[in-house]
């Protein structure tokens, strides 16, 4: 069954603003497009994930969050915004290998069928008892939760993987 491991340090920046008005700053500053609703543009190394109608989570190199947030804030200028380094707010996990989809599906009410949860999808949902963001990446999916839920989530994912496949997908 799938393997579960913690991702190393991630660089993350939260951006809350009128997303359409921020498109130029995002392209000039990071070379990223504003992702469509429930989508991620790029990936965990450099990407922009759609969190809410007025919120993106930007992935940058570890340690670069502060500099990117400051630069983006300057570029946004008069556009009302909140832009902050949140690299320590959340922790990431990778669920990789055969059966990764079931490892997540057993823990979440979200539709994780390949038709609904395919390449570029980004879904905020519930895993067990905690809020999480999940998206397909690499040979499986990546999972993001608040740091204080990290231990719980790692054990939850490993238990789900240990319990084996149910053959749904």
């Amino acid at each position, binding site marked *: 069954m799938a393997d579960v491991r913690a991702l190393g340090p991630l660089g993350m920046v939260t951006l809350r603003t009128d997303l359409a008005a921020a498109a130029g700053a995002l392209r000039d500053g990071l070379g990223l497009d504003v992702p469509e609703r*429930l989508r991620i543009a790029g990936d965990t190394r450099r990407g922009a994930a759609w969190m*809410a*109608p007025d919120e993106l989570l930007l992935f940058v190199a570890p340690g670069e969050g502060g500099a990117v947030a400051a630069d983006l804030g300057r570029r946004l200028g008069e556009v009302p915004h909140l832009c902050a380094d949140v690299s320590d707010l959340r922790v990431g996990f990778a669920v990789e290998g055969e059966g990764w989809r079931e490892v997540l599906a057993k823990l979440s*009410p*979200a*539709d994780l069928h390949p038709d609904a949860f395919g390449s570029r999808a980004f879904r*905020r949902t*519930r895993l067990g008892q905690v809020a999480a963001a999940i998206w397909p990446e690499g040979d499986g999916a990546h999972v993001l939760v608040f740091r204080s839920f990290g231990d719980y989530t790692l054990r939850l994912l490993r238990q789900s993987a240990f319990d084996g496949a149910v053959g749904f997908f």
Partner: protein
Amino acid sequence: MLILFCPHCGVEADETELAPGGEAHLRREGPGSADEAFEGYLFGRVNPKGVHFERWRHAYGCGKWFLAARDTATMRVWGTYPASEAGPPDPLRDAVTADRPGWAWRDLGGAA
């Protein structure tokens, strides 16, 4: 089990991904209001069997508030709309009326 469409992010959200927010379309009665009106604003809630309008928050998703029209007895859901709307959109009212002619809820109701 309730599945509600979040009008903000487009997710068909499971009930366990949502936080209930009680009755929809409450009108705030401020400091200058009559005691009775203020009491009603704070404590007066309807608890109908049938058509009901409720607030929900997509707590495990985009975090936004929305409103839902459903039947509390059958769990039939007629639709959802952003919490910024002052009342249910006309197509939604029409859908309720088609299913439950003569329905009434607070000062809302189907056409006679």
